[in-house]
């Protein structure tokens, strides 16, 4: 491929220090399924790869009743997709994991890498020196923007590519980050950042900071959840639009619920007022139709992606009805 050094740090602290002191000339390697593509396409050009895959203790899935679920950052996507407790209690997450890429990529890709993967905007992945790569313009804004965002964009219009991130947002997960010798835990909603905050990165991580764990609090009793991903080809692909929902139902009504969308914004998208509106919503055609009409009032579709708004509304209706019927 090209020349770089490879280090196998034996502790998290050592990995973090190398990454911090060498700044952008080092890159953290987990499964490598995204990183090696980025290097191949010369989007990044690290001199040193810091392999965290051999660090001990970050590949565990631990569920404690009444507390919740902990996923080490090195847990493979296939392990999440196949885990029985996750299927039963955190269905939206196993749904999302099981529709990522292909079996081969799920066997290699980690959850930490899935959250930290770089965008798939085709200008970004090809030889365009766009804003996100430090250039002056966004080629997608006036160019081919069929797969770009309809809400939360500017000055860059990517969509966040991760499926698990959308499910974890609906589940109110927390992300634990190792930072300067210490751990901090933040809501996943604060982990991802919009381009207006910083268009050079997709999350809050600073050089040397490493995601170590994802925590999902114990869901309410009798919760139901689901993930629906709309893809262009029927096989495996990134989401055109996706929706995750977690809800509790009683007497034909939603007593409480959360929704999150993928493929519509530069971050997994959530609107607090929509979550609030869901409480008390009746599961009948009219109410669900009305509700879905109120989605993304601030959306500003680009020239070629207005269809995503319609798609998001339809998928939202579908997920509410399907969860209610399950």
């Amino acid at each position, binding site marked *: 491929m090209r020349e*770089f*050094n490879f280090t196998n740090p034996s502790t998290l602290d050592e990995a973090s220090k190398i990454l911090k002191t060498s700044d952008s000339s080092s890159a953290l390697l987990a499964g490598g399924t995204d990183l090696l593509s980025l290097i191949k396409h010369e989007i990044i050009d690290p001199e040193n790869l810091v392999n965290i895959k051999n660090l001990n203790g970050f590949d565990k899935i631990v569920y404690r009743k009444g507390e919740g679920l902990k996923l080490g950052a090195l847990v493979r996507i296939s392990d999440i997709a196949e885990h029985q407790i996750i299927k039963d209690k955190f269905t939206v997450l196993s749904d999302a994991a099981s529709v990522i890429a292909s079996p*081969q*990529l799920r066997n290699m890709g980690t959850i930490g890498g899935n959250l930290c993967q770089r965008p798939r905007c085709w200008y970004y992945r090809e030889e365009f020196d766009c804003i996100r790569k430090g250039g002056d313009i966004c080629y997608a804004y006036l160019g081919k923007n069929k797969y770009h965002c309809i809400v939360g964009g500017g000055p860059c219009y990517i969509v966040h590519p991760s499926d698990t991130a959308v499910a974890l947002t609906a589940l109110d997960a927390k992300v634990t980050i190792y930072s300067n010798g210490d751990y901090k835990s933040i809501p996943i909603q604060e982990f991802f950042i919009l381009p207006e905050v910083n268009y050079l990165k997709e999350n809050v991580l600073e050089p040397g900071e490493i995601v170590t764990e994802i925590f999902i609090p114990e869901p309410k009793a009798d919760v139901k959840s689901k993930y629906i991903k709309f893809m262009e080809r029927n096989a495996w692909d990134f989401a055109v639009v996706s929706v995750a929902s977690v809800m509790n139902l009683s007497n034909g009504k939603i007593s409480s619920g959360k929704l999150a969308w993928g493929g519509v914004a530069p971050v997994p998208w959530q609107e607090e007022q929509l979550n609030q509106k869901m409480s008390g919503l009746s599961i009948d055609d009219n109410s669900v139709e009305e509700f879905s009409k109120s989605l993304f009032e601030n959306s500003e579709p680009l020239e070629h992606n207005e269809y995503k708004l319609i798609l998001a509304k339809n998928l939202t209706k579908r997920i509410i009805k399907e969860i209610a019927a399950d």
Partner: protein
Amino acid sequence: MQMIAIEFNLNGILVKAEVNPGVRLIDFLRDEYGLTGTKEGCGIGECGACTIILDGKAVNSCLILACQIDGKEILTIEGLANSGELHRLQENFLKKGAVQCGFCTPGMIISAYSLLLLNPNPAEQEIREAIAGNLCRCTGYKQIISAIEESIVVNIEND
């Protein structure tokens, strides 16, 4: 240039090697060991022609560095045949006309093999899912699926 010492199991044999960290597993297998059954189609995880088995799971060898496999077990298409005798998946791919140009075949068979390792009696949908990361431009998948199904039946009769 940095060289990294690795030790791993390749098709049942323990091997030691020194690798340059920039070398991908696919190139390492093909160039150092002459295992050219593993093919490169796209180099970015989209076609599955480079599929091998790493510690019992199918993975894309184009997105793995050789130095990442220290201490692990690798199985390539060459490791499937047993002392010159084709594996039943290989037999059935030939018998069912599942091989045309043959470029996708090794990866396809490895994906099918990894499925049968975990799930000896898969339904058609499970077969489709297991080969969803393997593209075939020639056959239209029908013959491939029937070759894999045929390999299940043989399995049940023999075992």
